[in-house]
């Protein structure tokens, strides 16, 4: 009896999480010109409207460039730091870990304010660079957590075998460690990209006037009212942010099986 109740409860919890999102997708295909219920038919007109909206397309380009740059920088910093934390015995390891994870322990508003004010004091006002610096700093902890978790599962034996067979440390890194690390690198980069792509709070503080990312663009559109265009944009975002990691996971799995370890 108890188990059945828990099952029904769980189904309701999942419905609670997914029903509103399903409604966004459903309404984005709504033919009704106000984009609300009752639906009068199916149509892709809102996606066409979206495609022809210059502001949104510009926001998309900004978000993608910002996300890619954030992912590149964060992943390099994060992978190097994770290697040090997992592979070496270093004094003060806990303190260093806490320090590196600190950006997610500090509320994002506080992080945003302090970075904005400090860089402004150094005559470095709101700019794309500030935006990038901000995105790097708060995606870094996530990259480190993800990469560390994967690194722990790679055995040192393989590297030691290569070294004992006469490979130089550099050869060992590029021939053994890096290929084994690739799934972790890919996962970290993907995570950083998605978090950057999705961020709004920090971005609102850091972005210079005239630059919008997709979330801030949606935010300013929501000020007026919810239009079917926003639902269509939401659907595109869902497809992108859910589809990308799934493709990424598939590639990571393929890489992992090909290396055979």
């Amino acid at each position, binding site marked *: 009896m108890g188990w059945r109740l828990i099952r029904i409860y769980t189904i309701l919890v999942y419905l609670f999480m997914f029903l*509103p999102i399903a409604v966004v997708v459903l309404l984005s295909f709504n033919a009704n010109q106000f984009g609300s219920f009752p639906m009068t038919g199916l149509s892709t007109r809102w996606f066409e409207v979206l495609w022809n909206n210059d502001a949104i397309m510009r926001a998309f380009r900004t978000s993608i460039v910002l996300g890619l740059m954030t992912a590149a920088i964060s992943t390099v910093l994060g992978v190097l730091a994770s290697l040090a934390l997992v592979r070496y015995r270093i004094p003060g390891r806990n303190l260093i870990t806490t320090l*590196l994870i*600190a950006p997610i322990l500090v509320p994002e508003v506080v992080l945003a304010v302090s970075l904005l004010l*400090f860089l402004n004091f150094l005559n470095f006002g709101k700019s794309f660079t500030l935006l990038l610096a901000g995105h790097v700093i708060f995606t870094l902890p*996530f990259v480190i957590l993800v990469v560390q978790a994967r690194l722990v599962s790679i055995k040192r034996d393989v590297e030691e075998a290569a070294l004992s067979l006469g490979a130089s440390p550099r050869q060992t890194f590029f021939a053994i460690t890096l290929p084994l690390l690739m799934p972790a690198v890919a996962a970290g980069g993907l995570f950083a990209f998605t978090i950057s792509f999705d961020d709004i709070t920090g971005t609102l503080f850091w972005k210079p006037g005239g630059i919008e990312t997709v979330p801030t663009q949606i935010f300013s559109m929501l000020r007026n009212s919810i239009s079917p265009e926003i*639902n269509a944009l939401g659907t595109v975002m869902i497809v992108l942010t859910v589809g990308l990691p799934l493709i990424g996971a598939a590639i990571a799995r393929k890489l992992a099986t090909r290396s055979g370890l």
Partner: protein
Amino acid sequence: MSIEQREARQPWILLTPALTAVTLLLIVPLMFIVVYSFWLKSAVGADTPGFFLDNWQEALTDRFYRDILLNTLKISAITTIACAALGYPAAYFIARSKGNKVVLLVLLMLPFWISYIIRTMSWINILGVSGALNSALMWIGIINQPIQMLYNETTVILGLVHFLLPFMVLNIFVSLDGIDTNLEDAASSLGATRWQGFLQVTLPLSLPGLAAGGLLCFVLSAGTYITPVILGGPRDAMFANLVYEAIIGQLDWPLGSALSLLLLMVLGVLVLIYNRYLGMAQLAKGLG
């Protein structure tokens, strides 16, 4: 240099870029706004450096700020409790189910990848005047006129719960999944009912996960800026909205610094208490 010395230096070379970034972009800026919070905003031009207590006095004694701070903590507490109540049974179901565990977990992770602002605004489609619920109620004939269900404290909490629930479920799941099921069997073979076994064995062992999820939910909702703007009314501002208003709206950066630090200190105390009793490792487990 000997090999040992090089070996000992290597991790620090690897750590330098990340540590430099965190120091320059987080630690130093935080120290900077501590200094800045004692400066004074001047009507024209640059703020006046110095040691003035005005901003702190305003942040700590103004009733307006205090009420919003207390309200923010109240909303965060309700959100956290609601997440625990909704999340615990679901996490238990996932941890103890046999066949479809992976599917359930992947589904649970999906919302992390779906844009926060999209998830928040999706409630307008449900509860808005021309939303799903009003349309359904009118279609059934319970109401003739659509009712405004949005833009109040309840919808803010609803939006926060919807946003934070996956964090809670995931953390509880991680600790439930680590419990040896033999313990429950042992309890029942010693004569405990399933419910007793749960209360006295499983629940206490899963408390670290519950605490980690609770901390995340509380801290994330207390720092939230977007949800009250989208789903709340004019009187449902939370503390982060005050900070935004001071910094971006009023351009009163010294006061904004003091308000940010106040929020940081209140939440910092919570994190410290948590760290004292449970340690950061549990938190890392649920995030990784």
